[in-house]
């Protein structure tokens, strides 16, 4: 078993004092970012990336990944105590978490959330550990057509499985790819889509886009509702935690099912948000206590939390092995990898062994660190939300703009942040998914290069994508997924019209 040796080597990398300190710092910053509305995991990672330019890539990724885990935990905290999801992926946690808190079971709800989240996360890391090498070996067979096929499949998954309107997903992905094409073309050197603006020559950075879309956009949406944090006080005592640990094994079915859903949604780019909703839906359908869901049922906290975190961790696998991130946050991290000069994909496992295994090992350690930290800092972070929003919101705005400035010291980027903020708000209001846009901006150039190289290799014939069984089956699966909403709606219509009333418009 090479895995074990590699993993042990990874632990040697991860378990240095410096890296442990980075994990603690990352987790704490992550919890803060997760607790504050308007600052989410993608945005938090984005704000940190410019600060990691001078760091060693292993240390940088450990910091960013730990921040991600912290943000996932922080998001659940506000969901339960304040009924305000700090992260989109913890919306489902509010359904039962907040009712539990209002019944005076806040500690119980928090402990269930954190522990099942940790279970989900570790489940995800184990899956990564087991699948990393086979996945990378598999991806070794890839050349340009296969890469394009996998990119195509990733976006087809959004359309087919994402849950949003397929048209809106197309708009989002198409916008992302178009924005990625702005500026210097890597193959021909021509300046594309600059409209004569010199500021556009360097292209539109996905970091700036993420800060606007997730940061300012989220804040506008928050501002719209008159926000008052009316929270439930909580102090987590070790005894309550132990009681919850004792009660947790009774929910093993929900835990394992939710973790599996999370892994599935994390590896296919459904993302943690879709995973948590799906897992909550499944739990409500199959639980013997399904009538108590929404009124403070522990299983309603366990299911979305375990799925959320296992999706979050397992989203790192396709990012490392194939260069396709499974969530918006993973997309931002992959953008970071490329900025540090690494090439995400199978070669990473050969060329950057200690990077890959250091990261995987750090995921085990950092998630344990995160649970311990979050359990004992809950009162502290809950107190932050008692600072009036009239002070917090403008400060977050400033953090966003300063963060955008640090990306490339361009004043034009500050205007872009506002523009992306408005886009993010409209997308949120009208249920357009944002993740495909971010993903497309990050992999846009790579997808286009893969497409053009396949065309060059096969003399401009689209048959390039069906030239061997691997590529052909990936492409066929992708096209099926792309057409899935159409197939499903035809099927549903037939089922719906037979027993019930005939629709008016047919």
């Amino acid at each position, binding site marked *: 078993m090479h895995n074990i040796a590699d993993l042990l080597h990874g632990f040697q990398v991860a378990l240095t004092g410096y890296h442990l300190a980075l994990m603690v710092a990352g987790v704490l910053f992550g919890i803060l970012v997760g607790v504050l509305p308007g600052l989410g995991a993608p945005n938090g990672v984005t704000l940190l990336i410019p600060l990691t330019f001078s760091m060693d890539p292993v240390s940088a990724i450990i910091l960013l990944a730990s921040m991600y885990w912290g943000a996932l935990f922080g998001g659940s905290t506000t969901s339960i105590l304040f009924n305000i999801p700090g992260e989109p992926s913890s919306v489902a946690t509010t359904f039962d978490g907040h009712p539990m808190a209002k019944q005076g079971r806040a500690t119980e709800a928090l402990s269930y959330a954190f522990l099942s989240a940790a279970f989900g996360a570790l489940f995800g890391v184990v899956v990564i550990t087991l699948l990393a090498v086979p996945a990378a070996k598999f991806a070794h067979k890839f050349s340009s057509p296969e890469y394009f096929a996998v990119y195509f499949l990733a976006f087809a998954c959004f359309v087919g499985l994402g849950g949003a309107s397929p048209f809106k997903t197309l708009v989002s992905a198409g916008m992302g790819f178009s924005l990625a094409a702005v500026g210097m073309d890597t193959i021909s050197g021509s300046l594309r889509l600059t409209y004569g603006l010199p500021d556009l020559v360097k292209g539109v950075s996905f970091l700036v886009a993420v800060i606007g879309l997730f940061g300012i956009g989220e804040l506008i949406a928050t501002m719209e509702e008159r926000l008052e944090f009316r929270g439930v006080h909580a102090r987590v005592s070790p005894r309550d935690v132990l009681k919850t640990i004792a009660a947790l094994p009774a929910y093993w079915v929900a835990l394992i099912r939710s973790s599996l859903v999370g892994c599935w949604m994390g590896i296919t780019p459904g993302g943690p948000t879709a995973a948590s909703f799906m897992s909550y839906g499944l739990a409500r359908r199959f639980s013997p206590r399904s009538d108590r869901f929404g009124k403070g049922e522990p299983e309603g906290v366990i299911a979305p939390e375990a799925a959320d975190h296992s999706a979050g961790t397992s989203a790192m696998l396709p990012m490392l092995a194939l260069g396709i991130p499974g969530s918006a946050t993973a997309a931002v991290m992959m953008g970071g990898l490329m900025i540090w000069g690494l090439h995400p994909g199978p070669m990473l496992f050969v060329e950057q062994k200690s990077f890959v295994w250091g990261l995987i090992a750090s995921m085990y350690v950092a998630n344990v660190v995160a649970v311990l930290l979050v359990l004992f800092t809950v009162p502290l972070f809950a107190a932050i939300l008692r600072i009036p929003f009239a002070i917090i919101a403008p400060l977050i705005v400033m953090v966003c703009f300063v963060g955008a400035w640090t990306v490339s010291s361009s004043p034009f980027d500050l205007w872009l942040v506002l523009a992306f903020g408005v886009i993010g708000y409209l997308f949120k209001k009208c249920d357009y998914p944002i993740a495909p846009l971010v993903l497309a901006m990050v992999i846009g150039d790579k997808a286009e290069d893969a497409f053009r190289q396949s065309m060059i290799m096969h003399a*401009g014939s689209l048959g390039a994508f069906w030239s061997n069984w691997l590529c052909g089956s990936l492409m066929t699966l992708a096209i099926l997924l792309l057409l899935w909403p159409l197939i499903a709606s035809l099927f549903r219509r037939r089922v719906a019209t037979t027993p019930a009333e005939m629709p008016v418009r047919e």
Partner: protein
Amino acid sequence: MLTAALSSAASCRGAKSLGIGALQQQQTSGGRVLVSRRGLAIITALLALGFGAAIVLGALEYDVGWDERGPEPGYFPFWMGLVVIAGAAGALIEAIFARDQTAQAAITLDQARRIGLFLLPMLGFLVLTVALKLGLYVGMIAYLFTVMLWQGNYRLPATAAVSFGTAAFFFVMFEHWLKVALMKGPLEAWLGMH
């Protein structure tokens, strides 16, 4: 396996609409309607349509066809622009023919006012910082001052403490610690800070 996942994707859609419904109940509590959900959906789809058209026009500056080396520079953006247009057209049709969302408010007047009050100082910040080239520090202090005094109803001492304190914090953190220079204007030059 796949079908199981797909059917649960459908159930996830159900759960999501449940969540949105719960949020809407809170939102529609006050004020007259500025834009209906349907209206906003149509406006957004039209904006996306415009974006797609702009991309297609921009791509047409180069050849969008093929030469012997494969697709030309304009090819990819051209087709991506068309994807946006197609998606936006679909979303527009969906919005026009949707039956359930016509009556609901997307944005009430009250909410629009709050959004305006949030965006206006931000616009002022950008004008000061970028358009007038006064730099991030001056813009930041002016922005925090305005927002806290005018919208937060804080007293002058608290306002001054927060806005100057934030600027000082950013200065120490970025210029000293991280060695990242934030945008500076004439004031910093006059004070001899670089």
